[in-house]
């Protein structure tokens, strides 16, 4: 079974190749059906392959497919262990549902087939990423998901904004990848290979803490790029230019979590460097808070979710940085469900509103879209962390573990709690502006519930969001921490963070629940009361800090003016002054110089015999002088 695990990748890949060539010829639903089924099959294959892990008898296995670049220890080798199994299942499971949903969402798009090519290709790339057995293969998947994200964000290439967003996403990711690449250089230089087996088994054998710090920080840069963490988060909001299923699959559920996965995978390296781990946690906590604040003021239904995604990824970073790898992966897992759910829901809304994305023009959709509304409520409760829904368990575990880590992490815990509060505020706002209150639709718009093909996945994801939290509870008996046991083999060697002892966890849980409930209540009241409508969560002050927040702290402008513009100027100077004028200029000058000298010399040939005789005679004298001097000497 496991020996053929490559089938998991091969299926969607084959789907992509097939659809690339024939997708455009197929009648509409068929392409979608094919794509969906390839991913679905992968899911079931993975499920069966993971059976041993469920029974706890599973052994990590590597499958060697073929040599790629042996001299770097980078071969086509797959690693099948609980961690990659979880990732595979998440990717294929959530992926399959989103594929299904897309059949409805992309209905009528002229490039229907092409879209599924992209989705399938992305799934394959993501699976390469999570199944890789060495950093080389990991990097392949790493870049390929970037590519597919680029292709899918700018899927509607006629929209300049979409094209630009795609480019931005890829390039910002590449910035991170440079860091990643340099990290790989260090790894090869110290380990002489890129294979996990050698590098991760017992890194202390090869590297000092210092080197480990360098390596891990560089990897972190790559992770920050993929997972949209500070400082490389700013591509994700623009990425919402892509079709909503793309946002759901790539920019919420799977690709953006690659960074988290990578940190978890390289846990043994991070373990060597407390500093790097702390950095990861700090980056995560701050990103979480930062993004949450921006989310407060967004009017675009998807941008809110985008910033929310960044914020949630922050939690995951906080987790893996704290050493709570299981918690991190668990949050990744649950988040995949409820965030995908929320995105698909917003997609369903956008669909219903005739591609309207401004929440100021929505409201009161609960009545017309009952199913969507219901599922969204579940998603909403899940993300703000109301027990017993998934979000609560995963997020709360993270916070608890952070608190338990003590010291600096206690401060990060505080940030986490504030973020939890803000999350509740902006998500409630999101719900209210979209589904509740009175309708503010433009005339001519009449929303309607989406077709079953779209609502079905919503339901599926809703169930996940509601129930999967119970997979990992701190209790015993029926709700034992199954997820943790499941992942244990992958983290045997790793020193895990522990829950604080005694009743503290309960206490912490209460705090976070309070924060969530309080935030939700505040926001609800804010809008219920308001007559003069205003999207801002607090009484209208469009000035000072709020303008900053509304514009995402002007980060894009700052980058545009401080990095991109000067960069272009420098390039232009190099090209049109240094290269054309100075370097090529001097080359041309040499050529012209030779010609000019030749011109100057011509008049020497006066045409007068006497002068010729003079020159000749001068030659004679010169030669005589030489020879006679030879004789003398």
């Amino acid at each position, binding site marked *: 079974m496991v020996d053929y695990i490559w089938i998991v990748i091969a299926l969607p890949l084959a789907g992509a190749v097939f659809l690339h060539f024939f997708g455009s010829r197929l009648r509409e639903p068929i392409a979608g059906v094919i794509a969906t089924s390839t991913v679905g099959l992968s899911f079931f294959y993975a499920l069966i392959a993971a059976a041993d892990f469920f029974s706890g008898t599973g052994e*990590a*296995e590597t499958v*060697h497919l*073929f*040599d*790629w*670049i*042996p*001299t*770097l*220890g*980078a071969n086509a080798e797959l*690693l099948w*262990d609980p961690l990659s199994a979880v990732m595979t299942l998440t990717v294929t499971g959530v992926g399959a549902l989103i594929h299904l949903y897309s059949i409805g969402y992309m209905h009528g798009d002229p490039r229907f087939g092409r879209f599924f090519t992209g989705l399938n290709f992305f799934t394959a790339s993501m699976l390469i990423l999570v199944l890789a057995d060495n950093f080389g293969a990991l*990097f*392949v998947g*790493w*870049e*390929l998901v970037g*590519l597919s994200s*680029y292709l899918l964000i*700018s899927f509607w*290439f*006629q*929209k*300049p904004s*979409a*094209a630009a967003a795609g*480019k931005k996403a*890829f*390039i910002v990711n*590449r*910035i991170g*990848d*440079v860091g990643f*690449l*340099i990290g*790989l*250089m*260090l790894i*090869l*230089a110290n380990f*002489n*290979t890129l*294979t*996990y*087996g*050698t590098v991760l*088994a017992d890194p202390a054998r090869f590297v000092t803490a210092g080197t480990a710090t360098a390596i891990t920080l560089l990897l972190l840069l790559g992770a920050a790029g993929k997972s949209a963490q500070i400082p490389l988060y700013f591509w994700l909001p623009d990425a919402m230019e892509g079709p909503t299923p793309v946002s759901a699959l790539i920019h919420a559920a799977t690709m953006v979590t690659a960074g988290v996965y990578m940190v978890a995978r390289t846990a043994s390296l991070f373990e060597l460097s407390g500093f790097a781990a702390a950095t990861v946690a700090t980056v995560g906590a701050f990103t979480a808070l930062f993004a949450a604040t921006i989310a407060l003021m967004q009017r675009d239904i998807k941008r809110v979710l985008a910033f929310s995604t960044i914020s949630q990824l922050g939690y995951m970073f906080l987790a893996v940085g704290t050493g709570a790898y299981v918690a991190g992966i668990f949050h990744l897992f649950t988040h995949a469900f409820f965030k995908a759910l929320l995105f698909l829901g917003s997609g369903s809304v956008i669909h219903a509103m005739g591609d309207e994305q401004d929440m100021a023009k929505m409201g009161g959709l609960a009545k017309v879209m009952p199913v969507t509304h219901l599922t969204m409520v579940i998603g909403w409760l899940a993300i703000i962390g109301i027990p017993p829904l998934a979000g609560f368990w995963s997020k709360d575990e993270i916070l608890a573990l952070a608190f338990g880590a003590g010291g600096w992490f206690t401060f990060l815990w505080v940030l986490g709690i504030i973020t939890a509060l803000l999350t509740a505020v902006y998500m409630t706002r999101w719900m209210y502006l979209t589904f509740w209150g009175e309708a503010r639709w433009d005339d001519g718009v009449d929303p309607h519930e989406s077709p079953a093909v779209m609502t079905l996945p919503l339901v599926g994801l809703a169930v996940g969001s509601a129930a999967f939290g119970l997979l990992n509870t701190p209790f015993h008996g029926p709700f034992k921490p199954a997820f943790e046991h499941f992942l244990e083999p992958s983290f045997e060697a790793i020193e895990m963070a522990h829950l604080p002892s005694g009743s503290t966890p309960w206490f912490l849980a209460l705090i976070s629940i309070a924060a969530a409930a309080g935030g939700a209540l505040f926001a609800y009241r804010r809008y219920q009361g308001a007559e003069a409508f205003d999207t801002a969560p607090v009484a209208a002050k469009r000035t000072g800090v709020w303008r900053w927040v509304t514009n995402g702290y002007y980060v894009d402008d700052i980058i545009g003016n401080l990095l991109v513009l000067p960069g*272009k100027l*420098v*390039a232009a100077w*190099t*090209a*049109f002054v240094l*290269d054309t004028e100075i*370097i*090529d200029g001097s*080359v041309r000058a040499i*050529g012209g110089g030779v010609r000019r000298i030749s011109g100057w010399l011509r008049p020497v040939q006066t045409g007068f015999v006497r002068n010729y005789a003079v020159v000749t005679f001068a030659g004679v004298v010169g030669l005589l002088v030489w020879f006679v001097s030879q004789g003398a000497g």
Partner: protein
Amino acid sequence: MGFNVLSLLIWLPVAGAAVVIGLPRRRPELVVPVAFALSVLTLGLAGFLVFDFETANGGFQFIEKTAIAPDLGIDYHLGVDGISLFLVALTAFLFPISILASVNVADRRKEFMAAVLLLEGALIGVFLALDLVLFFVFFEVLLVPMYFLIGLWGGERRLEAALKFFLYTALGSAFLLVGIIFLSAQANDQFGSPTFNYLELLNLDISRSAQYWLFGAFGVAFAIKVPLFPFHTWLPDAHTEAPTAGSVVLAGVLLKMGTYGFLRFNLNLFPEATVQLAGFLAALGVFGIIYGAAVAIVQPDLKRLVAYSSVSHLGFVVLGIFALTSQGVSGGVIQMVNHGLTTGALFLLVGMIYERRHTREIAAYGGLQKAMPWFAGFFLFTAFASAGLPGLNGFVGEFLILLGSYGRYPVLAIIAAFGVLLAAVYLLWAYERVFTGEPDKEENRVLSDLGLREVGILVPLVALVVLLGVYPKPALDRIEPAVERVLDRIEDRTDFEPPLRIDDIAVVPAEDDQ
């Protein structure tokens, strides 16, 4: 070996040129098929060569040797090793494509095809020659057909470009020639008889100072060909003004003569100087990476953009070669091939769009993806290959080079890594401006997508790009032994210890994995 495959590889195209010229004036339609058939035949020979090549053998194979001028030690001496093998194959592969891409050449078609075929013969000769005079002959004589290709069938500023190309490169070769002569003089002193035989010259022991001078003399010639900053300014003009076939061959193969020369001659003949100067050249290469990319970003002319991207990519090759590590050098070699494929494809694509719109101005385009989805697809694919996307050939080379060179020049390798980023910037930005958005100009809306011939031209390239990206092993297996020989040689000729030799690598059995 029943027949002298190497000689055939060189002289078949040359004879082909004669045949093409000899075709009756009244039957112009024959020209292209004949030329194409001949180049395909050559490709077949190259294929035979690749398959008949002894994989594990790092030395020269298929050697041929006959004296031309015995008392001067000039021989007709050919041989192929893992380093030259794929350059020959690349050459033989690119020419049928370039010929097929030039069927629309109307003016003096016979002469055009003849020139192209001559060029092919000469280029293959450069990579096969094991006698320095013979090498120089091929190295120099191919300027003539190239000169005519640019000067007769080129763009508006073709004359200037052609002259610049010829003079600039010839200037380099002048020093090369003197260097070669000096070597044979040394041989005369040490062996008692003059020789230009590469294999014998390897046994010379050359004083350190002499090595520096010779390294310089050879190096200038090769640096101009590569081209290394600051000797690169002939390249954008030549590439831009040359007809499509010319650009493809220039970028695809001609530039490789420089890097090949460095690897074959400088590293082997002047090991001490190499070890001393490697850092400097690697630095130049890295500078070229960033510089070429920066200049490419703002080029308003699509063809110039691709031309400068070559400067950037060749910088990687130079870095790899002078890293003097197994991975770096093999990466350099395979990157030569990769660059030939991707940049060749890019020039072909630019040529195709130029044939339709007769402009290379990026600003003149926009929203092409609507009218020409296939063209856009091919372009994007090639762009990503050239930007070093994993899974495509470009990555394998750059990955090996970067990781391989870190062991020797951490700082340089790190700077070079940013070249990968910049490549994405200039290629994607160009793609955005040319292909995306709504086609605002009428002439862009009515463009016809690629025809069967054009697709036929591109598909083989694409196939190879993917193949080399996913399964480079066959190539690497043939390249590495030759590279190892070079490094061994440097190791025992100098006190230098190349880091990261392959045999140092801890090979981990798949079992004891986590």
